[in-house]
């Protein structure tokens, strides 16, 4: 049984609403993980401008930092990283077999905490952006 019988629209109908906490956590963790890898690659390439000398490095960085989009993306990155960290810690506990019964609650806690940290950091991140 290598392929599943395709139930077409029937298969998908209303399906996503029925995800439970653990599944959402998995989806988010995956998404944030991928974003972080993506960022890691971008990050290193941006920093690579330093190989062409201090001037290039400074120009690139300040050039990017002066863009409002970049600033907003940075907030996004923070959100992604914070969630991945918090949920990652949650997963580490799950791996240790600690608090399995509260796995849904700890997921919600990660979400809330991420929100709080991100909101609190917005002023710092956006200083001088606009």
């Amino acid at each position, binding site marked *: 049984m290598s392929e599943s019988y395709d139930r077409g629209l029937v298969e998908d109908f209303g399906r996503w609403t029925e995800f439970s906490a653990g599944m959402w956590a998995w989806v988010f963790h995956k998404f944030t993980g991928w974003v972080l890898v993506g960022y890691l690659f971008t990050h*290193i390439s941006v920093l690579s401008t*330093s190989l062409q000398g201090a001037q290039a490095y400074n120009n690139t960085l300040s050039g990017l930092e002066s863009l409002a989009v970049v600033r907003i993306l940075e907030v996004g990155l923070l959100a992604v990283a914070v969630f991945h960290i918090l949920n990652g810690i949650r997963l580490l506990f799950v*791996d240790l077999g600690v608090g399995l019964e509260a796995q849904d609650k700890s997921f919600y806690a990660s979400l809330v905490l991420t929100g709080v940290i991100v909101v609190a950091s917005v002023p710092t991140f956006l200083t001088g952006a606009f």
Partner: protein
Amino acid sequence: MAERYSSFRSGSTTWLLQRLTAAFLVVVLAFHFFNLHFVTHAYNIEFAGSQARMSEVGYYLTMVLFLVTATFHGVNGVYNALVNQGIEGKAKRAAQIVLGLAGLLLVVQGIRVANTLAGF
């Protein structure tokens, strides 16, 4: 029927490494973020500052280790995600090669950057 599950390496090592790197990354990533967004603000970063930080051996080593662990963690994570989607055979082999090379490239380039900043 065990042969159906033959694999190229034991899953437990990479699984454990993924957790260990994660535990390490929690600390360093938090430090990194805090350092470059709250202590020094990202919009204030200049070559000179980076160079100053990088010249400290401790910091340099931490950053290199950070790079290596993050790369392993990220690349292995992506690979896992692909296997979870059931890739097999050629596709799997290709993923291993591509991801492995990308990771290597990233680490090499990262170290070059670090060296430059540290002024080696």
